[in-house]
């Protein structure tokens, strides 16, 4: 019974910790295609395209999954996001979130 509990706990913990981490270096590599519009390091020079640098990681994940599912409607981003796995999305989001860029506006 104790062993069963341990196994269950391990089963719950391991996949979530492995899958949700996101890998910075993989993200950097995968981000090359994004750079054409969003700029190197996520600072876009085209003003209609958002700066990604420094954005919250889980907001980037939410955005990419929204484009992939079509819930967030954008024909260009859908084309790119459709080819991304959950792991790709995690990796890219870690990479862009760790670049210097966007900040939280001051309250006053």
């Amino acid at each position, binding site marked *: 019974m104790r062993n069963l509990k341990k196994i269950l706990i391990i089963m719950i913990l391991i996949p979530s910790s492995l899958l949700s981490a996101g890998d910075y270096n993989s993200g950097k590599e995968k981000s090359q295609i994004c750079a054409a519009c969003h700029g190197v390091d996520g600072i876009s020079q085209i003003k*209609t395209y958002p700066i990604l640098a420094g954005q*919250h990681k889980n907001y980037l994940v939410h955005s990419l999954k929204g484009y992939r599912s079509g819930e967030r409607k954008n024909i260009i981003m859908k084309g790119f996001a459709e080819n991304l796995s959950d792991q790709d999305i995690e990796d890219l989001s870690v990479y862009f979130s760790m670049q210097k860029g966007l900040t939280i*506006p001051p309250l006053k």
Partner: protein
Amino acid sequence: MSNNIYADEFAIGKAKSETCLGCHAIPGYNNVYPTYKVPKLAGQHADYIVSALKAYQNNERQHPTMHANAMGLSEQDMKDIAKYFESLK
């Protein structure tokens, strides 16, 4: 003179952005269902912010709170708000 115009635009944009700050200026503040942090806006391109607000307005981007907020904004309001956030670099 040009500095005064700039200062006025900044003040107008800042005043119109007050509602936004209730969520977007709180560090670590989360959207829920699903959970993710409310996006950072300081330093973002104004043109993109305007396009995002319009997408919320016409439900190309679905978010009930942002839809409600965007519905109350004129084109000029959107530009003023967007310029304010862009200026915060």
